[in-house]
């Protein structure tokens, strides 16, 4: 075989060996890549499965929180009024007045009263809840009036039953007692037991003892107390 042929064969063999080395090394690297991707895919599948219920749960939480915000905002505006409500919220969270209430777009147009510049948060809460609180008597200049001076004392009455506090004139008056009282009550035989009601109706009269005494009794006309038909008018 000529020398160039031998050189050619050796060169081809060398090229094949190089190809085998590099290709086998590449295959090993690709296997490592495949193994790593399999692990990554498994973890990603776990992430997908674990995060699947998150949207529903977070949605429910947000739904309840939105309802709470609507409830508290509505209650605050209803009880304190829009202006005071904005002032109270701005006092607790400075700058919140600019954002306003979520369900009250008009609240952004209200100038928040400077409530927090005079009173502490606790005092504000007490003053707001109890309109007649003494601390609420002095209102900051230009701020919200926390105390209704003319109607403040009547506000507390609404906390109690209607008949007792707001309509006292309809209650029965206390009975007048004494010798000059319009209604005279007879002495009773025992505490709590009355022999006769002022209207003449007998209560404790026993038929045996209720018989009229003889006409010649010594004190028949002197002590008519307890007798049927006795004059009960005041002396």
């Amino acid at each position, binding site marked *: 075989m*000529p020398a*160039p*042929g031998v*050189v*050619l064969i050796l*060169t*081809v063999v*060398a*090229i094949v060996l*190089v*190809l085998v080395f*590099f*290709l086998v*090394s*590449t295959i090993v*690297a*690709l296997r*490592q*890549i495949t193994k*790593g*991707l399999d*692990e*990554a895919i*498994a*973890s*990603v599948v*776990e*992430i997908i499965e*674990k*995060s699947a*219920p*998150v949207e529903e*749960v*977070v949605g*429910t*939480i947000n739904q*309840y*929180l939105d*309802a*709470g915000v609507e*409830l*508290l905002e509505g*209650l605050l*505006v*209803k*009880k*304190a*009024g*829009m*202006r*005071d409500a904005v002032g109270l919220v701005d006092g607790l969270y400075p700058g919140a007045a600019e954002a306003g209430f979520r369900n009250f777009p008009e609240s952004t147009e209200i100038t928040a009263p400077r409530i927090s510049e005079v009173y502490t948060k606790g005092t504000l809460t007490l003053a707001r*809840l109890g*309109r007649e609180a003494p601390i609420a008597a002095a209102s900051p200049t230009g701020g919200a009036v926390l105390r*209704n001076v003319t109607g403040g004392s009547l*506000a507390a009455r*609404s*906390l109690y039953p209607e008949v007792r506090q707001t309509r006292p004139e309809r209650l029965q008056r206390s009975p007048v007692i004494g010798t000059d009282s319009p209604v005279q009550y007879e002495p009773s035989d025992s505490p709590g037991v009355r022999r006769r009601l002022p209207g003449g109706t007998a209560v404790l009269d026993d038929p045996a003892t209720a018989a009229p005494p003889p006409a010649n009794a010594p004190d028949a006309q002197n002590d008519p107390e307890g007798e049927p038909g006795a004059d009960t008018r005041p002396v």
Partner: protein
Amino acid sequence: MTVWWIGDIVLLVVVVPVVIYLLAGVLSEARGIVPSVQRIGAAAAAGSADLDAVPLLLTTQDQVIRTIETAANYGGSLDVILDDAREE
């Protein structure tokens, strides 16, 4: 004969270096991907482990519901107790 030698020279000087260069580049890039893939797998595993606390959201949901219900009851009582704001 001369042509044979020329072919051998071309094969040794041109073909072999080009083949080695290309195969080395492919192997280098393949080996460079391996660490990246391993880091991706580790990050995905860590993310999956972080989501193990997701069931606690159910507890949070229950607590939020109870809190809002309590606030609603309290607000209802306040609505009865306190007088409404007067219209100015």
